[in-house]
């Protein structure tokens, strides 16, 4: 593919524009009157997002800039190198991705943000977060990367606090989030530290130029993967996701889930493709293991959640798991002498990332719209929204189709490419591949199946049938800004599904993969493995099938029109209460039974008997709690241990001056002995 002719300095101009717009957004957020704040700041952030999208796209198709140097007071002596922003192709892709999501989220936020989320702090935090996130992939060295990374983390933490005064869980979630975020940061810091030490520089160029191998490379790999996995929300460091996403304002959840976690993916790709491209084979096995476990565990948890936003959060873990799996497979194949199929797997990873960004934005924004309309995010209390919120319902439906990887959405295309990569592995000569690839395939398949169930549940329980509570019954459609964000997102989801060819071709450039071409105008041809996907043709065929069908149906409908009844539902008998409807908890009950080992649900049946006779039941309450096994087994012991160490440590500082003198004395004696030796 030939690089498009883009003015060389477009990238630089775009970066400057993002920074200026970010600063302007902060300024407007602080200065604008409360009435106009959301509209003005939101619009500026939308512009910043668009700037990032344009800059990133330009970089993706090969435009390069001079780079933007950040002035820092520290002397840039070795191992530090100048802090420069200049996205490469891969970075451009992720910058564009972040920009589009930010633009959508901010557009939604104009209508959505209220209360603390629309305060000065709220919008400032969002602007800082957005710009920080957009600049992460533009970094050309570790320090700039960490700087943008932490701006992103700080902004998101602050915004997470928005609703702290009205909901108690917010505080706990923020603590978890900030600690896990910092865990990620420290892993990265240590990892980059090791790389800087071994290569003598912090810029990507120096690190990759050093072509590291051996212990430093392995140490750095482990540390960095741990850091990126934490940000990407992979098991077992996913625990912040299901806590932070539900408590954050929804436009923020969307931006976090659709874009921020992708920075973890960007990091993994940066690490494995650019910084340490020549790792041993087990590295890719590590990634595949991380990815598959996350995918399966994430979707299992998602499928049994009743909290809509928590469900979406766990689904993020699943999708990020799939992406990581794809990266792992790509690397494994690259090391196994199958570069063509490896390229397909890497392209699949990028496609998964892009499509996930699109549909997860829509889903979280839709959830936000529902939350605003009903004040509820518990599926067990919703229902019947499709009749009252047609726009939201439609967009959410499209998003759910994407998340369930059904045709013709971006999600389907992405998973199709991943499956194609998997089945085209030539594993005949390689026993490792012959074992790893089928297992991967099986897990991916189960993940896809459970994903289908999850999103049927999310949509069906939340939007169909009758409202389960008065709040759901009185829901109203979202305002114009929110609606347009939802519709734009849904258009993206379908657009990616209908015309995957050109985008995929550009994505292939980002990981310098060959063998990907556009088929026809919009279709996708994986020349490397000789298969094509032409969604438009497929759609045309579907239309061709549908036209006669609909015609017949219309004729029949005219002859035998639909009859309105009041006694429908409940086998045509007396109207049943909406409480008798299946809800999210009952929907996933069979699954809870099948996977009782890994879900460890606890059931409580509370029976209140009638006064007159113990044989008569007056009321029954059934509660089902599904815990996070990893949290129980890993984090709770860890926090308990920390608390015990804390108690133990208090004896160090027990108030006795003799003990304190003892410390100093011991130190003195020790020093004397050491210097005498």
């Amino acid at each position, binding site marked *: 593919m030939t690089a498009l002719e883009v003015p060389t300095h477009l990238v630089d101009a775009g970066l400057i524009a993002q920074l200026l717009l970010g600063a302007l957004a902060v300024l407007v957020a602080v200065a604008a009157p409360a009435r106009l704040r959301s509209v003005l700041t939101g619009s500026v952030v939308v512009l910043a997002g668009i700037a990032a999208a344009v800059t990133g796209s330009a970089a993706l198709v090969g435009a390069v800039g001079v780079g933007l140097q950040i002035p820092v007071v520290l002397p840039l002596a070795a191992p530090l190198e100048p802090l420069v922003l200049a996205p490469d192709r891969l970075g451009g892709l992720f910058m564009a991705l972040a920009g589009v999501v930010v633009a959508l989220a901010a557009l939604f936020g104009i209508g959505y943000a209220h209360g603390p989320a629309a305060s000065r702090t709220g919008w400032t935090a969002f602007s800082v977060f957005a710009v920080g996130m957009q600049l992460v992939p533009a970094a050309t060295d570790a320090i700039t990367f960490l700087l943008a990374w932490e701006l992103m983390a700080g902004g998101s933490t602050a915004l997470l606090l928005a609703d702290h005064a009205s909901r108690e869980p917010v505080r706990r979630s923020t603590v978890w989030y900030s600690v896990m975020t910092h865990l990620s940061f420290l892993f990265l810091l240590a990892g980059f530290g090791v790389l800087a030490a071994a290569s003598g520089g912090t810029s990507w160029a120096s690190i990759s130029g050093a072509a590291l191998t051996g212990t430093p490379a392995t140490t750095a790999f482990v540390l960095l993967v741990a850091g990126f996995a934490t940000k990407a929300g992979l098991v077992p460091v996913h625990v912040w996701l299901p806590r932070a996403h539900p408590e954050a304002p929804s436009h923020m959840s969307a931006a976090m889930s659709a874009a921020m976690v992708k920075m973890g993916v960007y990091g993994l790709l940066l690490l494995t493709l650019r910084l340490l491209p020549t790792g041993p084979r087990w590295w890719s096995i590590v990634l595949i293991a991380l990815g598959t476990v996350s995918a399966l565990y994430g979707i299992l948890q998602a499928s049994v959640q009743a909290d809509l936003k928590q469900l979406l959060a766990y689904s993020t873990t699943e999708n990020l798991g799939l992406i990581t799996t794809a990266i792992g497979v790509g690397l494994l194949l690259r090391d196994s002498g199958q570069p063509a199929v490896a390229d397909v797997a890497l392209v699949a990873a990028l496609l998964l990332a892009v499509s996930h960004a699109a549909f997860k934005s829509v889903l979280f924004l839709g959830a936000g719209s529902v939350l605003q309309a009903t004040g509820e995010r518990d599926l067990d209390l919703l229902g019947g929204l499709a009749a009252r919120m047609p726009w939201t319902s439609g967009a959410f439906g499209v998003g759910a189709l994407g998340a369930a990887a059904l045709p013709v959405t971006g999600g389907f295309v992405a998973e199709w490419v991943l499956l194609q990569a998997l089945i085209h592995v030539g594993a005949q000569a390689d026993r490792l591949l012959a074992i790893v690839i089928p297992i991967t395939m099986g897990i991916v398949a189960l993940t896809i199946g459970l994903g289908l169930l999850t999103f049927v549940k999310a949509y069906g329980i939340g939007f169909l049938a009758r409202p389960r509570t008065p709040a759901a019954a009185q829901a109203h459609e979202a305002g114009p800004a929110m609606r347009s964000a939802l519709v734009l997102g849904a258009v993206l989801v379908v657009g990616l599904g209908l015309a995957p060819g050109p985008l995929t071709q550009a994505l292939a450039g980002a990981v310098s993969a060959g063998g990907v071409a556009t088929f026809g105008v919009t279709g996708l041809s994986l020349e490397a493995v000789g298969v094509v996907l032409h969604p438009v043709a497929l759609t045309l065929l579907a239309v061709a099938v549908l036209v006669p069908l609909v015609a017949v149906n219309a004729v029949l409908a005219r002859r035998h029109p639909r009859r309105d009844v009041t006694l429908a539902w409940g086998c045509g008998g007396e109207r049943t209460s909406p409480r008798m409807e299946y809800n999210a908890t009952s929907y996933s009950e069979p699954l809870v039974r099948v996977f009782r080992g890994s879900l460890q649900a606890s059931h409580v049946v509370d029976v209140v008997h009638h006064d007159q006779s113990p044989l008569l039941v007056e009321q029954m309450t059934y509660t089902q709690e599904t815990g996070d096994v990893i949290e129980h087994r890993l984090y709770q012991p860890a926090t308990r241990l920390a608390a015990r160490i804390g108690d133990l*440590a*208090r004896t*160090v*500082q*027990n*108030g*006795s*001056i*003799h003990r304190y*003198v*003892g410390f*100093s*004395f011991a130190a*003195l*004696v020790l020093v*004397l*002995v050491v*210097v*005498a*030796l």
Partner: protein
Amino acid sequence: MSSELYQQLLATTTGLLLLTAVLQVWGRSTVRAIGLLVIQGTALAGLVLTVGVQAGEAAAPLVAGLLFVVKALVMPWVMLRSARLIGVTRERSARLRPAVELIGAAGLTLLAYAVSGPILGDTTDPATRAVPVGVSLVLLGFWQLLIRGSAITQLVGFLMLDNGIAAISSLTSGGLPLVVELGATLDVLLVVLILGALVVRMQAEEGHIDISELRELHD
């Protein structure tokens, strides 16, 4: 000054220093400890004078006099006054058994000799060879701080520590520049004054000066 006399004086003063230090660890009487401080201060002043004169420093008598006044007169007086003011003349309770205290003290003295050797290297300079006594004083001062519960005896321990350092200073480098020497002495004096004032305030507010009871601030 002849070499023999010099060595004799060194031996006498350092011996006195060590003796008083051990006696301070041994006893429980606050008043006696303060009395021993007077001897210790005098011995220290003598040591500084001896070394200074031997090295031919003009300021030596001045420094020695200053030390004598501050360490052998003013400080003990301040402490004695504090002790009288609050009417405490003996330790209330032992933190360790006396035998353990003394064995510890012996061990620390040995340690002082053990570590001083390598640090100072092989030397024939009699002054330098006496340095372990100073180190012992430092360690024994610490020991005093560590094992004694009364504020006054802690103060004594601190002064012993300080005397030890002064001794080492004089034995190794023949003293520091005058301005530093002055400043250091002044500082120590001020510290003692502050601590003395605090002791009085402690007795007034708490009704005792047992610092092992001072455990309100802890985690």
